[in-house]
C-alpha cells in the first residue's frame, strides 16, 4: 500500500515541473505587454475555477458567486494596503481570511438548499455585491469610491510586483501560489477529508448516517472555496494596478462556472486550463481578423455557449475528464473484476 505515501510527493514534483515550464514559457514567446497582463489574469481566473473544483467538483455544491469572492479578495487587499499601509503579503492574508469568513456565511443557506435553489441564492449574493456593495457610496471607505484603489510600487520578497513592467513577476508569483494550493486540493481529494466531501456529493443521507457532520463539512467547503478565490483576487491589484468593480460582476461568476464545467469540474488541472482559456482566448480572438472580419468579445461568449452544449453531449465529464479517460483507456489501466460475480 505505498500509494498514499507517494502520491503527495509525486504531486509536489509535478507542481515543481509545471512551475518551471509554465513560469518561464512567456519568455520564450516574447509576450507583448497586454498578453503579459493576460498571463497574470489567467492565474487569477484559475484560482476562481479551482475554488469551484473544490466546492462543486468535490462537494457537489453549486455556487454562482465566485467572481464576487475574487472581488472581496482584491478590494480587501487593496484596502489594507492603501489605508493601513500593510505589507502586501499581509494584506493578501487578510483578504484570504475575510473571504473565508464570508464564504461560510454564504454557505449557510446551502445547509437547507440544494441544486437550482442554491444556485439562485448564490446568484443573488453575486448581484448584491455587484450592484450594491462594490458600487454604492455607502461603502466608499472599503471600495475607494468610484475611482477605486490604485496599487503601485509593490514589492514582495525584494522582487518588484506591479503592472508596470513587472507583470511576468506577478504571473510567476501567482502561478507559484496556484500550484501550491492545487497540490493541497489534490492531496485533499484522496484523503479522509476528501472522501467525506465526496460522500456528501454522492449521497448526503448516507454521508450523515456514516458519521459525516454535514453542517461542518459543507460550511468548511464554502469557506475554503471562498478563501481560494479570495487569494486569487488579492493578486488582481498587483496585475492591474487598480481595483474597480467591473471585473468581478455577475457575468464573470457565470463564466467561471461555465469554464469549470467545460474543462471538467472534478479535476484540479482543469482549473489551470480553464484559466488560460478564459484569459487568452478572448484577447487572441480580438486580434484575429479572418477575411478582414472584426471578432467581437460577444462572439467569445456565443462560442463558449456552443462549446458547453457540445461538451455536455460529447464529454460530460469535461475536457480534462474526457482526456483522462481516453489516456487511461489507451493504457488499459482500468481495473476489471478478476473473479466472476458471485
Amino acid at each position, binding site marked *: 500500500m505505498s500509494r498514499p505515501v507517494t502520491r503527495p510527493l509525486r504531486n509536489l514534483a509535478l507542481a515543481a515541473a509545471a512551475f518551471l515550464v509554465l513560469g518561464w514559457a512567456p519568455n520564450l514567446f516574447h509576450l507583448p505587454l497586454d498578453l503579459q497582463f493576460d498571463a497574470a489574469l489567467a492565474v487569477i481566473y484559475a484560482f476562481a475555477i479551482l475554488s469551484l473544483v473544490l466546492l462543486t467538483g468535490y462537494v457537489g455544491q453549486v455556487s454562482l458567486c465566485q467572481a464576487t469572492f475574487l472581488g472581496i479578495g482584491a478590494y480587501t487587499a487593496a484596502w489594507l494596503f492603501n489605508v493601513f499601509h500593510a505589507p502586501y503579503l499581509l494584506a493578501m492574508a487578510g483578504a484570504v481570511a475575510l473571504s473565508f469568513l464570508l464564504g461560510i456565511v454564504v454557505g449557510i443557506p446551502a445547509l437547507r438548499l440544494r441544486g437550482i435553489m442554491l444556485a439562485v441564492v448564490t446568484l443573488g449574493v453575486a448581484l448584491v455585491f455587484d450592484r450594491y456593495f462594490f458600487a454604492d457610496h455607502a461603502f466608499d471607505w472599503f471600495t475607494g469610491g468610484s475611482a477605486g484603489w490604485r496599487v503601485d510600487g509593490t514589492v514582495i520578497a525584494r522582487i518588484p510586483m506591479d503592472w508596470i513592467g513587472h507583470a511576468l513577476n506577478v504571473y510567476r508569483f501567482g502561478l507559484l501560489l496556484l500550484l501550491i494550493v492545487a497540490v493541497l486540493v489534490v*492531496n485533499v481529494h484522496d484523503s479522509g*477529508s476528501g472522501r467525506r466531501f465526496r460522500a456528501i456529493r454522492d449521497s448526503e443521507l448516507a454521508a450523515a448516517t*456514516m458519521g459525516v457532520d454535514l453542517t461542518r463539512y459543507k460550511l468548511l467547503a464554502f469557506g475554503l472555496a471562498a478563501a481560494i478565490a479570495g487569494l486569487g483576487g488579492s493578486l488582481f491589484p498587483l496585475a492591474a494596478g487598480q481595483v474597480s468593480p467591473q471585473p468581478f460582476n455577475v457575468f464573470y461568476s457565470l463564466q467561471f462556472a461555465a469554464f469549470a464545467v467545460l474543462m471538467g469540474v472534478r479535476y484540479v488541472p482543469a482549473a489551470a486550463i480553464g484559466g488560460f482559456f478564459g484569459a487568452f482566448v478572448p484577447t487572441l480572438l480580438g486580434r484575429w481578423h479572418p477575411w478582414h472580419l472584426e471578432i467581437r468579445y460577444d462572439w467569445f461568449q456565443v462560442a463558449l455557449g456552443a462549446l458547453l452544449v457540445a461538451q455536455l453531449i460529447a464529454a460530460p465529464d469535461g475536457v480534462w475528464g474526457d482526456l483522462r479517460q481516453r489516456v487511461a483507456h489507451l493504457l488499459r489501466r482500468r481495473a476489471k473484476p478478476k473473479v466472476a460475480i458471485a
Partner: protein
Amino acid sequence: MSLLKVKDLSLSFGGVKALDDISLDLNRGEILGLIGPNGAGKTTLFNVITGVLRPDSGTVRFRKRSLNGLRPHRRAQLGIARTFQNLQLFGSMTVLENVKVPLDALGRRNLFFDALGLPYAVHAERAAESRARAVLHFLELLPFADILAADLPVGIQRRVEIARALAMRPRLLLLDEPAAGLDATETAHLAELLQAVRERFQVSMLLVDHDMSLVMRACDYLYVLDFGKLLARGRPAEIRDDPKVLEAYLGMASPRLRGEVGGGPKEEAAPLLEVTGLAAGYGPIEVVRNVNLQVRRGEVVACVGANGAGKTTTLRALSGVIRARRGRVRFDGQDITHAGPDSIVRRGLIHIPQGRGLFPKLTVEETLRLASYSGEAVKSLDPAFDVFPRLAERRRQVVGTLSGGEQQMVALARALLVRPQLLLIDEMSQGLAPTLVQQLFETIAVFRERGIAVLLVEQFVDSALEVADHGYVFEQGTVAHEASAAELRADRSLIESSYLGRDAEAKVVPIPLNGHARRDTGQMEEFLLTLPADLLRALQERADEQGRPASDLARELLEARGQ
C-alpha cells in the same frame, strides 16, 4: 437493559399516522426482524432511529442514553449504522473508498493534516486502508475493492452497503430490505452471512424485509407493523401462524363479493396478451426475470404475491413505461416489446397505475372528456355515469378533492369510455375502505361483460381471485405458480408461500444450554430478576441437586416455557 429501546413513538405526515405509538425493544446480540405490508411504517421507524426524521412524540434510547435531538452523524458516532432500501452508495467512489468513509468520519483526522499529506495523515490513511480491507475480506468483497460502486450489480452493492456500515464498528446495524433485488440463492446466502456477521463483529441488528424466507431464517424475534401500529410480536414460528399477521399480509378479511362474479375460463379464445421470458428493472436492479403469462380476450387475470415480488414492475414493462430487458410481449397479434407507451395505448392497452395517474386540478367531467387515447373525442359520458352514478353527481368537482375511492372510480370510468382491449390495474384497492373495495371489484365484472380483458395486481387476494378467471402468483421477481382462480382459491398454500416463505425451511437455531457454547458475554444482556425468597430457594435447591449453576437451570425453565 436493552440495547435499543423505542418507546411510544408517533409520527404523522399531514394527517396520516406513519407511526402510531410504537414501542420496541432490541436486546444485545439479537437479530430483530421488522415486517409488515408496504406503508406499514418500517422505513419511517428506521429514519426516526437514525435521526433523519424527528418524531412527534416518544423516545428512542440507545445504550441507556436518550437519542432525542441528536443529529444523524452523532448517532452514527454512538454506534448506529444502517443500510438503505434504495441503495445509497457513494457511486463515484471505489468500493474501498466507500468503506473508508465511515472510518475517517469516526477518526480524529482533519483537513489540515490531509491537505499537507503529513505523516500523521499518511499513518491514519494506512490504518483505515487495512481496516477497510479486513471488512471487505470478511464479506468476500476484496476482488471488487478498486471498482466504482456504481458499476457493480445490485447483489454486490447490497453487500458493499453492509460492509460500509460494518466498517463503523457499530453496536447496532439497521438493515433496510437487504434482500430486495436478490434471487433465492443470494437471499439464502445473505441469511447465513448475517449470522456470521453477528458473531464476527459483535453487532446486533434490526432487519426490515419483505422476503419472509430471509426474515424467518435470520431473525430471533419479530415485530409486525401494520398502518403504523404494532400488530404482533413473537418468534418467527409463532408469527407465521398468527392469524392477525396472515390477515394483514393476505387481506384474508378482504370483503366478500355478492355472488360469484367470476365466470368460466374461456380456454378456446386466442391469447390477447402473451408474455414470454420478460425481464425488467430499474438502473442496475433487475426486478423481474423470466416472467411468462397470458391474458385471453375478455378474461380477468389476477397477479398476487408479496410486496417487491415484481408485480408492479411487470405491469410497467407491459405498458412500456419501463423498457423490457429481455423476453417478448405480444399484444393482439403484434410484437409490442419495444413499442413506446403512447403507441401501446393506441393499440388498446391501458394501464391504471398505483396512485391512479389522474390530473388533480381537472374536474371529473373534464377528465372523462379527455379520455380519448385514440385521438377521437368522447361522444357521451353516459356509459361511465351508468356504471358509476356517484360520478354523475360529482361531475363538476375537481378530481383532487375527491375521496380515494371516487378517484379510483374516475380512473376506471375513464378506462371504460376508451373501451380498451386490455386494462392493467395496479393496486386498485390500496388505501380504500372495504365497502368501497367491494363496489370496485363488482365493476370489474362490468368490464368483462363488455369484452374488456383485465390484468389485476391486488393486495386483497381473496377478492381478486373471486373476480378473476385465472391467477399468477409472483415470488421473488418471477411467476412461481399459475392456476385457475378456482384452484388458487381452493389451495391457499400456493399463495401463502409467496407471502410468508413457507416453502423455505425456517432454520431453528437450538440454544445450547451449557454456557460456553453460547455467544460471548459482550453480546448478552444483563437482566436482574427479582424473585420472592421461596422461589429463589427452590431454584437454588434444584440447582444443587443437579449440580449445575442456577442460571443454567433458569434458562432451561424459561426455554421450556417458550416452546
